[in-house]
């Protein structure tokens, strides 16, 4: 009734009430029975000249690919490594890299274009219909497979011999443990290092590149400089890593004393110079963008913003805690020093951090 469906058939009112709702399966079957898959002849199928032309085109593409491979090989030895050329849109670039890349790129690309051109113009373009087999095997095959499994299991006796089964399961459960245990030495146990920095009483504040001691008059109002404790290089030498750098980095900012709205401790500034941890309290990026006029400090990673005139409080973005402040003063020679270490852990939160 619905197997043969020709849209050109005239509508027969007698069949009106027999026509069921069509499901997608039936509907998509219908046109097959009527027409099957259409196929149109290409120019290259009918005209030998066109076919010959296509053949030449494909061969030219493959030939050009070989040419570009040769260009690559030649330029590998012929172009000096340090030669630079200026190319429009790209700018000044290494000549060798450019020629090697372009020639290699075309050598590869032209093989692809040639192959697809060949497939489209000259290979048979008749679509083939293949039947699908149901993925689920027939019931009897399933039964046989399960039966084979049961026979095997029975012959092993794993079902009856509980002692063997349980001892085997126990052994299998335990034997990976050495692998897990060996992972223990991936890292040392935390000993509160995340709470500590190198800063302590009377430590000089030095610049972070030239490691020079800093006098208050070196910092004009509105300026911001990155600084480190004076012993940072010694620590780095001793520990052979950059861990301390990632914690002890501070920022010094000078503002007019009357601009300071609040600080984390009484007179922790020195003549309007305040020192704050440079490490963001969100996930720990070093902060560097300072807006002089508002005293806002912006973290370039996730845009947490801190107000350095107001105890380093977070005023925008995902950071929830203020930047820890370092109390500073000057020594008898007039160099900036820390009055004490940081009074709270610097950097991002961690579980044991607490208040």
């Amino acid at each position, binding site marked *: 009734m619905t197997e043969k469906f020709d849209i050109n058939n005239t509508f027969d009112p007698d069949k009106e009430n027999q026509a069921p*709702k069509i499901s*997608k399966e039936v509907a*998509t079957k219908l046109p097959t029975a009527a027409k099957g898959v259409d196929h149109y002849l290409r120019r290259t199928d009918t005209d030998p000249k066109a076919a010959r032309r296509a053949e030449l085109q494909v061969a030219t593409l493959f030939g050009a690919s070989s040419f570009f491979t040769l260009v690559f090989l030649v330029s590998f030895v012929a172009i000096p*490594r340090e030669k630079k050329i200026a190319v429009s849109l790209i700018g000044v670039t290494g000549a060798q890299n450019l020629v090697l890349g372009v020639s290699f790129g075309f050598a590869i690309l032209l093989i692809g274009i040639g192959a697809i051109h060949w497939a489209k113009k000259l*290979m048979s*373009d008749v679509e083939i219909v293949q039947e699908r087999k149901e993925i689920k095997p027939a019931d009897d095959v399933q039964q046989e497979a399960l039966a084979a499994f049961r026979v095997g299991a029975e012959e092993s006796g794993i079902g009856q011999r509980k002692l063997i089964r349980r001892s085997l399961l126990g052994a299998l459960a335990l034997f990976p443990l050495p692998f897990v245990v060996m992972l223990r030495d991936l890292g040392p*146990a935390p000993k509160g290092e995340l709470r500590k920095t190198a800063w302590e009483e009377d430590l000089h504040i030095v610049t972070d590149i030239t490691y020079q001691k800093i006098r208050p008059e070196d910092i004009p109002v509105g300026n911001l400089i990155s600084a480190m404790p004076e012993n940072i290089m010694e620590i780095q030498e001793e520990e052979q*890593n950059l861990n301390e750098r990632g914690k002890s980095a501070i920022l010094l900012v000078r503002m007019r004393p009357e601009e300071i709205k609040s600080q984390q401790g009484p007179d922790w500034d020195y003549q309007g110079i305040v020192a704050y941890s440079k490490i963001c309290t969100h996930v720990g990026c070093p902060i560097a963008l300072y807006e002089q006029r508002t005293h806002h400090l912006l973290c*370039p990673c996730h845009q947490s913003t801190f107000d350095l005139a107001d105890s380093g409080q977070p005023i925008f973005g995902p950071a929830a805690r203020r930047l820890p402040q370092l109390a500073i003063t000057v020594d008898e020679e007039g160099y900036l020093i820390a009055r004490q270490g940081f009074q709270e852990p610097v950097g991002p939160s*961690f579980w044991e951090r607490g208040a």
Partner: protein
Amino acid sequence: MSNTTTSKKTPAAYNYVDSRVGFSAALKRNLRKVFPDHWSFMLGEIALYSFIILLLTGTFLTLWYKPSMTEVIYNGSYIPLKGIPMSEAYSSTLEISFDVRGGMLLRQIHHWAALFFIAAMVVHLLRVFFTGAYRKPREFNWLLGIALLTLGLLAGFSGYSLPDDLLSGIGLKIASGIIQAIPVIGTWALYFLFGGEFPGTEIIPRLYSIHILLIPGAILALVTAHLLLVWTQKHTQYPGPGRTEKNVVGYPLLPVYTAKAGGFFFIVFGVTTLLGALVAINPIWLYGPFTPDQVTAGSQPDWYIGFLEGSLRVMPAIEFNIFNTWTFSPNILIPALVLPGLMFVLMGAYPFIESWITGDKREHNLLDRPRNAPTRTALGTMSLTFYILLWIGGGNDIIATTFSLSINSITYFMRVALIALPPLVFIATKRICLGLQRKDLEMLLHGKETGRILRLPDGGFVEVHEPVSEAELPKLLARETYPVWELPQKVDANGIKTPHYHRQMMKAKLSAWWTKGDLPIPTIKEIQSGQHHAHAALEQAHEFGVEPGKEEIVTSTNH
């Protein structure tokens, strides 16, 4: 074998191998295996080929790269960094870039291929989703795909970090900040991964073995399984003439598919190579070596990490102190761990949720047109909107500086948009799908509009419709509706409670929501009559003039 082949002599080499391997039966079965042709089926291919390119170029890079954080003084040919202390990892990356001929090219191809690899996987995933290709029997392959995407992201991130330049180091710093925020075990996890505090000296070697061994090995295994399943289940196809749930229509493996798919590998490789040659990517020599106290403004991760960057940026600052002893940081945990976890779990579970709601347990080999599954399509565009908004949020600083906008306003806008926009997109998509369905229905019931207007003798105007062509018809007919799940009685006539009543009730509600607004499927009778009318009307038009008495037929095309 047929008579024609027995008469030909078996080549000696073939015979030599076949009598040791015995592959003739497999070749006979598979050499002419049919693959359907459609541009959207190439997306998965791009991912596969990019992976091959990554293996090739990556192997070359390992010949020169040194995964070590030992400090060295750079003395290579890149003048601006001469004499500067840096890690061996960064210095060897500079060496690859400036002292190995073609090394810069390899690095850039590798990076471009990585971007394409993940992009192709994402677009392939979208194609599979919006066409319903994940339905039975392909649910496992959907899960394999999700696993591959996850591994791809990890591969990308671990590789991005290896040069140990300032930008990649910032990425690692962020990762370390996220790890140490994990409740209870965070600090330990950080110490185990980094071998102590950040940055330590262990992370680069460890990421290296993860990047070149563990992840590619896992990807290779899963890709193999993914392809084996495609092979045995045969590819899905779009509805079209002669295509059914039970067959597959397309080109044979040899020669057409081999030429096209093989050729396409070379095209992907060629384009990636040209990009590597012409478009600079990740110029690590400009960023300088990593040091944990420096940062560059406008730092951006590779595109596929952008959504996480966005979620971190957009999240409000919520953090708790528990008894003044522990710190709990939803401002980090929700955007960086909970959200992506939820996204991937929901994606993985989706095929099973949909089939539970629709009750559809049949095998599907014909793809859905997105309009024919409006609720699914709407869920897809809704999720995509959410993802894209996060991604835009990850570039809020770039947007702010490019368009001179306030970064704060962009972030506030994103917070609202992430909640408000996806539902709006859901509603709009569903309406558009139903509208397109109506248009299809109109074509089935009244024929196609031709744009030709006939003037009738009585002065009225009608537009001539023509019948839908044989080629278009299967597409228009390929729509089905699902029955709404009936709400069960809480207690039946005998006073027995329905088991799992609440689950059933939820299913009934979801099923009603799923099918809401579905158009009825036309009967064959209706379609025949519609197409017949259109056909008759067309004939009328050909006659250029309307005879009295047949006028009624012409008019009736204009129901």
